């Protein structure tokens, strides 16, 4: 009885920590990364994400790659994705995946990843907001040309790119993918991308805006590299002690985010502004709270 009471208090406290959406008709989504282990930690983090949806009802989730580690048999898809995320799948949440270095490219045909047979693709969940999923394992001329066309055509919408390898990172193991940054960042800047979401490093990191763009690493939704993050001048917030996911909400020209750990505790939050004309000045007001 006493244990149950303690548990109830804990849950109540934890629920209070995830904040409900700010906007009534805002677009809400979750960000998860490096999820595909199918182990207890992955299942637990997925369960917390499903619980958080009770407070923060999000429509879809974007996946930062390494969606299925190791074997990719039908049983692996079941054990490493369908089972941990069953509650969300049953609840109608759509998942949009990008490919990590541990993913077979054939994942593009898996319906629950909504990639429609493409290694890189774009989708617009709502008027004025467009996502671009890239394959950072293989950024060739064909993909760059596609990206430039897609960014150009998207006009003045919120432009959000997501893919596996981080262009900025304070990770001690991998660090930033400078070679990929050299070819992608000029396009992001030119076409006024607001937000870039990545994984690969098994921790959470939010960068101070770089050339006006806010970069996140969300790579600890299953695996965790404890203390794998160094302190650098580009870090706005970091967490290499907890498994985590991020909830985001776009409300007009503002994007509110909450980074949440496996105990449903918000450890980083803030607001990013979309200001298409303000490339010259700092346009992110993201602040650690």
């Amino acid at each position: 009885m006493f244990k149950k009471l303690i548990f109830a208090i804990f849950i109540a406290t934890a629920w209070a920590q995830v904040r409900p959406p700010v906007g009534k008709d805002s677009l809400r989504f979750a960000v998860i990364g490096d999820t595909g282990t199918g182990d207890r930690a992955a299942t637990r983090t997925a369960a917390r994400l499903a619980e958080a949806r009770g407070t923060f009802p999000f429509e879809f989730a974007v996946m930062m790659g390494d969606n299925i580690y190791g074997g990719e048999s039908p049983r692996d898809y079941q054990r490493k994705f369908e089972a941990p995320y069953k509650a969300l799948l049953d609840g109608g949440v759509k998942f949009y995946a990008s490919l990590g270095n541990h993913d077979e490219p054939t994942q593009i045909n898996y319906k629950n990843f909504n990639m429609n047979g493409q290694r890189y693709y774009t989708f617009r969940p709502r008027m004025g907001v467009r996502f671009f999923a890239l394959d950072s394992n293989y950024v060739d001329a064909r993909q760059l040309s596609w990206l430039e066309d897609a960014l150009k055509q998207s006009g003045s919408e919120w432009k959000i790119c997501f893919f596996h390898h981080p262009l900025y990172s304070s990770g001690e193991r991998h660090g930033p993918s400078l070679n990929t940054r050299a070819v992608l960042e000029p396009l992001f800047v030119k076409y006024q991308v607001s937000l870039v979401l990545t994984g690969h490093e098994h921790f959470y990191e939010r960068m101070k805006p770089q050339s006006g763009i806010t970069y996140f690493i969300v790579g600890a939704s299953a695996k965790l590299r404890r203390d794998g993050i160094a302190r650098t001048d580009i870090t706005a917030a970091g967490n290499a002690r907890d498994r985590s996911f991020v909830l985001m909400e776009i409300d007009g020209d503002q994007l509110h985010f909450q980074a949440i750990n496996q105990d449903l505790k918000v450890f980083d939050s803030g607001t990013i502004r979309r200001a298409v004309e303000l490339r010259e000045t700092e346009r992110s007001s993201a602040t650690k709270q």
Partner: protein
Amino acid sequence: MMQVLVFIGLLTTFLISTAGDVKPIAPSKEFDSRLAEYVKLKEKVVSGFAEPVKKDDAQLIEARKLAAANAVREARSSARQGDLFTPETAEQIRRVIRSELKGPAGSSARKVTKQGNPTAEGTPFVPKVNVLYPKEAPLSTVPPTVLLRLPQLPKGIEYRFVGKTMILYDADTRLILDLLPNALP
């Protein structure tokens, strides 16, 4: 720490300034025509396999992929190393890789070639022509600055690294189509 950040900044500036004006090397007509022949063969062989009706069925996807791979393997049963990489193209590719990976400016690209490379990731294997890429092995990342200078491949065929060897990889069937040993310095 400040020195490290300054170095990274300078390196990035250099990479960005050089990435914008890269042009791929002109592939030999022979390389192009050999690849086109392979694509034609694959299309012919795979055309008999129906697309899975239910695309959420991972089992169907896997079964189709394996059937296609086996059919292509059979159709190319006499495939040998060098069937696709002509000697001229092989030399061009090695030259590009050497130039992109050399010196301090190439350090980032050198690092990228180890990401997902089965040898560096602890799942080494010896690649062979017309053999399936092992399911348990990750796929290497290929530095974009290298990719942008290599001859463009038909859709679905990719350059990848296994150890120091470059392979031509068919992403639809997971088959290794050809090898270029010692592509990485």
